């Protein structure tokens, strides 16, 4: 078992794990860290240093991928906070909004029309999601984690994952609703 070998100090085992997981973690971090390449690389290094230090604590109680993403989640969270503290950082505003969620009252259930199916508009709307909500969507759709696994990675109750997904949906709808239809169709 790779993690047991890593726990025993096997660098080659860590290399295998690193090369196997780097592509997907890089994609995860890319979205979480706004495409800041140096930051992504630093976070990748932090994640695998943490894996190196803590592989002995892996209990096979979660999938290895869930365990590694759990570490990645915290590393990304730290990295975002560090970015936010840069005096000139555009991340300041984003970090402040990190916990922000759309007002549920603004969007009634099912209040979307065909406009939402415009993927370009949807892509723009995704850019307006807070990292927290973007992360929940990404873990499910891009990284294929189940509800329970996503909750474990984010270290929140299952209900919170559901609410973040729900908030993300509403935020997307709200952003789309604020997008002039003509412009959307033109872009299409």
């Amino acid at each position, binding site marked *: 078992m790779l993690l047991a070998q890593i726990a025993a100090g096997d660098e080659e085992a860590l290399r295998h794990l690193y090369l196997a997981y780097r592509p997907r973690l890089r994609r995860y971090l890319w979205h979480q860290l706004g495409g800041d390449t140096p930051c992504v690389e630093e976070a990748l290094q932090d994640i695998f240093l943490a894996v190196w230090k803590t592989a002995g604590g892996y209990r096979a*109680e979660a999938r290895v991928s869930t365990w590694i993403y759990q570490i990645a989640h915290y590393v990304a969270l730290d990295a975002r906070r560090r970015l936010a503290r840069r005096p000139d950082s555009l991340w300041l505003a984003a970090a402040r909004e990190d916990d922000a969620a759309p007002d549920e009252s603004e969007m009634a259930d099912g209040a979307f029309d065909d406009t939402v199916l415009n993927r370009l508009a949807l892509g723009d709307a995704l850019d307006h999601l807070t990292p927290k909500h973007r992360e929940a969507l990404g873990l499910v*759709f891009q990284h294929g984690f189940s509800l329970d696994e996503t909750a474990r990675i984010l270290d929140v109750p299952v209900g919170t994952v559901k609410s973040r997904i729900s908030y993300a949906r509403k935020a997307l709808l709200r952003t789309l609703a604020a997008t002039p239809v003509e412009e959307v169709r033109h872009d299409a």
Partner: protein
Amino acid sequence: MTPDLTCAECRELLPWLLAERLSPAERSAAERHLVDCAACRREAALWSALATTLADEERRIPPDSGANHAWLALRDQLPQQWPTLPPSESGAAYSMRTTNDAPGSGVAQRATLRTASRQPRHRLRRSALALPAAVVLIALTVTLFGLFGAQLRHSYRPAAAATSAPAACASSGLRASLPPNAIIGDISMTSPRDGWAVGWVQHGGQQQAVAPTTLLLRFQNCRWQPFGEGIAAAELFSVSMNSATDGWAVGATVIDASVSSPTGDAPHDWERSKLLTFHYVDGQWQRVNLPTVASIIIFAKVRMTASGDGWMLIDGGKTHSSPDTVKFAYSLLHYQGGVWAPVPLTFDVSDSLELWDVAAMTPDDCWVVGYGTTTSDTFAVAHYHQGTWTTWSDSQLGVTYPTLYAVTVTGPTGVWVAGSYHFHDANGDHTAPLVMRYDGATWTRERVGDYGDQQSIHDLMTIAAQSPNELWAFPQTGHLSIPPYHMARESDGKWTWIAAAPVNIITINAVVFVSETEGFAAAVTQTPAGIASVLLHYANGAWSAIPTS
């Protein structure tokens, strides 16, 4: 055939339907619903478009050309990154277990129990658990997380004991003999100089090749040390003493649920199985078989009152009444007149109910907290009094989306609950620490602020009373970079965050005050050999680690 879904149930499944992460039964039910429901099909179209858009986004990421270079840079850093021992006055790792030959030592029955495998519910939450991180999160998922989030003194007993009992031990004179990899789940003190702690020992180092063994510690002569030999393949979660001569401990047997592999390298997977109960009487811990109330045991907690009345909250995991219907199973036993008997949990709640903590102070009266959804509202707190349950919902508490993990009772006008809540304001959506007090008539929210910029600390997992008006609450952060641990404390109605822990702590499993000036706590920290407990002592207004010897 699985039951038909409502639109709300179907929509909740849609993201995972599109992500292809539903069970066959869930998938089938969702697809069946979609055939007949145009509104949900439109909702599914939204998620489908979103999934496609997210996939498109992946292609916007520049190709990775630096993997090998990055690996070499990482490798160069590895030798400096091994963990260090937590601070310890002994300057060494934990002592080996010692043999206790005190009269009456030993549990009444020792047995290695192995039964059929069954998958327990994983109750990780923030679970789990400031740590070096997620590693500990995982380890705690197995051991504590969620399971010991709120071990504390559940009923404040006035410091009368301090006046009639022997004087407290000086911090400098305290010692603890803990086996390596010992996890302490709970503490119960009968005086400043006498008490018990329970837990388990994880043998075989990180690979856990050997099943855990129960751990029973006795505090006497200013020293914590193992009492008797442990029971193989079992763990103890909770202990509560009525008096110095009478008390109860509860735990579970464990079984190896790992799947063997041809190469024999499959990790062991120790899962909790059957309830294990002990009664301390006549100077001995005697095993007592209680009626079966759950087919498996995830966690159990016992809380006795000074009068001999007691309560046992048992988490029996989840059961499936159909492949896609999950029901959590909790049992509450009431000890009265020498008999443990089930108390029906008659709350108006859905299957999503989770119960986290129980506290009691007077006979025939107990408090239970957790969270869940009722048919019309949400569940937060329940109070049992002489055969009748009273519950409070979110709206009755006046708090939005509370999640309560801990409760303690200091008196008729002091029922304290702790956890977190979710709220919206002009700046958005937040989760924040929550402490509420019930004065016998109304619930009031205590003024507990966020912990600075470490906003990930928002769940208070444990609450303990130092005096009727001075309490401590302990967060569980699960965060990489928050040493030392912080605690919230009340003084004259104001809660402040205090950097209180003398060692880097993952979580606090138990906190017990023996007087208004002295207390003990069982913390969990990480050592090179895995997670292990450290006993803390509160005196002279500060917490210190009890040296091992």
